[in-house]
């Protein structure tokens, strides 16, 4: 280190002060950053199992709690970083304290900032002492480490833990729900014996959710009821997103199965049918439950029908277990409604499982030449989950099926499911299924 001269001493000292300040602040910045990363990764590591395997309510509680904790930690880190941050004014004081300089450095710089005057008797001595001490307060000596190792290690460990957990979670994909189609209401063709009795649903395509919109599986949390505020929907959306990111296609298959099932078998929920209809977030608790949908007596015949009329999932085994393809899943963005807006029918709509099999075999494409008409049809049947299983073929309560608003709404949306009915039965069918309000609205 060259000896300082009184004239250039201040400049040299100020340069070194700036270097110390830069190094110290960079160190503190890194420290705060790494610890923030560590806190975030740690929180994500803790939240991941909740997101993948816990119910929506549990995940929501965990997510909000973790958000509060992480926010508190980040605030503490910010406060600590602010205290340790060297402002221009406090840098010299910190150097004096850290380097045990006894006030020499500060005295020199402050006196140099005064209006130029005659250098004092001791000015040269002060400069010489500071020049001798320059080596004692170099940036590397005052801030020995350029990287905060503990903080960095914390961030790395937390990130690695999160990555490992993500990998393990992606390997342990979700079990696809065993969606069973059955010709018989409540039947379990080809399905193993299961003591649980799920709800049996005949999905009415095109039946909107309450409020008229199609349900969004990623936006509505289970048990939220009518509270669909952003804060309430955020955890469910996050959970759905996490599952989508972690499990990818496996989760898509699950979601597609759930979508085809229309509702989960978690019958313990207390919400009305319409709300549960589009709810997926509670399904994860019962991944292995079987799902039942009613279908036409002859699946082959249903599949052969023209597109748009009661189209079934593309891939279906002979044993009745359905597994939708990705393309099929992609064509079902509104899981739970059993159909889409393009007129595609739901899983069990129009397949002849309606009470009494009103229409019998579907006719070919309708048109004036065939002397038939098409009628949008939706019917729903639900079996008690815990109660005794109904006998096969037993019709649901008339009251449950008498849902004129479904027909009205369905007609308003689009004819999602059509059945060709001979013209001779038109009057009777219209009288049975037509909505009064709709009829009254007709001219």
């Amino acid at each position, binding site marked *: 280190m060259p000896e300082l001269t009184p004239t250039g001493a201040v400049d040299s000292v100020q340069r070194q002060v700036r270097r110390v300040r830069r190094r110290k602040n960079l160190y503190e910045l890194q420290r705060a950053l790494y610890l923030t990363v560590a806190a975030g990764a740690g929180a994500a590591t803790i939240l991941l199992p909740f997101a993948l395997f816990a119910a929506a309510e549990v995940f929501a509680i965990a997510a909000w709690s973790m958000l509060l904790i992480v926010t508190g930690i980040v605030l503490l880190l910010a406060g600590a970083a602010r205290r340790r941050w060297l402002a221009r004014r406090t840098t010299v*004081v910190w150097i004096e304290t850290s380097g045990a300089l*006894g*006030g*020499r450095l*500060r*005295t020199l710089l*402050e*006196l140099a900032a*005064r209006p130029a005057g005659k250098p*004092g*008797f*001791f*000015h*040269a*001595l*002060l*400069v*010489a*002492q500071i020049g001798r001490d320059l080596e004692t307060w170099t940036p590397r000596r005052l801030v020995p480490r350029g990287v905060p190792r503990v903080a960095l290690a914390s961030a790395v460990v937390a990130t690695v833990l999160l990555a490992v957990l993500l990998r393990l979670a992606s390997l342990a994909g979700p079990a696809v729900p065993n969606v069973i189609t059955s010709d018989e209401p409540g039947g379990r063709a080809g399905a193993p014996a299961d003591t649980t009795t799920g709800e049996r649903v005949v999905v009415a395509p095109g039946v909107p959710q309450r409020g008229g919109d199609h349900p969004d599986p990623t936006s509505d949390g289970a048990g939220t009821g009518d509270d669909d505020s952003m804060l309430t929907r955020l955890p469910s959306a996050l959970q759905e997103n996490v599952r989508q990111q972690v499990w990818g296609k496996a989760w898509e298959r699950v979601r597609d199965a759930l979508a085809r099932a229309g509702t989960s078998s978690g019958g313990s929920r207390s919400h009305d049918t319409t709300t549960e209809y589009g709810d997926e977030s509670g399904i994860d608790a019962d991944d292995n439950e079987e799902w039942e949908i009613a279908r036409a007596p002859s699946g082959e015949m249903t599949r052969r029908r023209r597109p748009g009329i009661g189209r079934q999932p593309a891939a279906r085994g002979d044993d009745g277990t359905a597994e939708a393809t990705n393309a099929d899943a992609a064509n079902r963005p509104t899981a739970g409604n059993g159909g889409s807006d393009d007129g595609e029918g739901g899983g069990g709509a129009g397949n002849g499982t309606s009470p009494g099999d009103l229409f019998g075999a579907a006719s070919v494409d309708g048109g004036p030449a065939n002397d038939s008409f098409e009628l949008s049809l939706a019917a729903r049947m639900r079996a008690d989950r815990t109660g005794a299983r109904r006998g096969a073929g037993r019709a649901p309560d008339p009251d449950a099926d008498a849902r004129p608003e479904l027909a009205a709404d369905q007609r308003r949306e689009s004819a999602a499911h059509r059945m060709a009915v001979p013209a001779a039965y038109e009057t009777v069918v219209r009288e049975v299924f037509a909505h009064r309000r709709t009829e009254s609205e007709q001219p």
Partner: protein
Amino acid sequence: MTPAVATAAIEDFQRTFAAVRAEMARVVIGHEQAIEAILTAFFAGGHVLIEGVPGIGKTLIVRSLAEALNLSFNRIQFTVDLMPADITGTRIINESPSGRRELVFVPGPIFAHLLLGDEINRATPKTQSALLEAMAEQQVTVAGTSHRLVSPFFVLATLNPIEMEGTYQLPEAQLDRFLFKVLLEYPSESELVRILGTTTTADPPTVRPVLDAERAPARAEELKRLVREVLVAPHVEHYVAGLVRLTTPAGARGDGEAEVDVRRYVTYGASPRGAQALVLGAKVMALLDGRPHVTYDDVDKIAVPALRHRLVMSFAAEAAGVAPADIVERVLLAARRLRS
């Protein structure tokens, strides 16, 4: 000025200071802190007020200091009938060999390097005020003519805290002119034994001069100038200013214990002279520590002797038995927040 010369000057100051202190310690048993404060005030260019009971060694300290520095020394025993002219000097009619009569100024005892005003509070205020001009401006005015005092000029006044009858309390203006106020405590038992052993023998110890007789005044002035050259950074000046402000009721606005005590017990706080005393004393402390600049700790070291006689205490303080030094100590604690 090269660093080597400055370093040599500091070392010379330290050697001289230590030598004088050692010589005084040969005859003055104990009172180390008082001696250091007196020497500090001397080199800082101030005056010292010594308070102590009779027979405790006040005069001995001053005499020893004069002998060690090899400077002229006078003593004035202040009594109630002492007149100002007895201190400053007066004009007398002098007849020259040619027979011509003229008024000639005869210097009083104040014309000495070291002046001991013993029991200064026994003189009348008029006589006490005769010291004011001398202490502040280092000159006296007699019959309209100002007479410059010798340099260095150092006043050591003593106060007897007992036998207060027939005494005149020193006015605040005069108190303020003393750089330090030093309290002499009773010696401890061991110190008393040493005093008996050294002062009652046929060959009592004597003080050997540290400075050469001819150059002593110049050397003393040189050392005093060196003290003034010590660097004081603005942050130390701010600290001193804040410290002094805290001793005043108007400046002690906070809710801290010190501030509350100041408002309750102090009627008038330290003056700007108090701040000057702090800085000058701190400069001596810095030199003694081998530094060319003043730090906070230097100020703290001499805060009590520099400030305690400048605080005018209230009746509440007297009733509560709160001494000015207690207030200064509390203010020092509170002033730590001013260090930034």
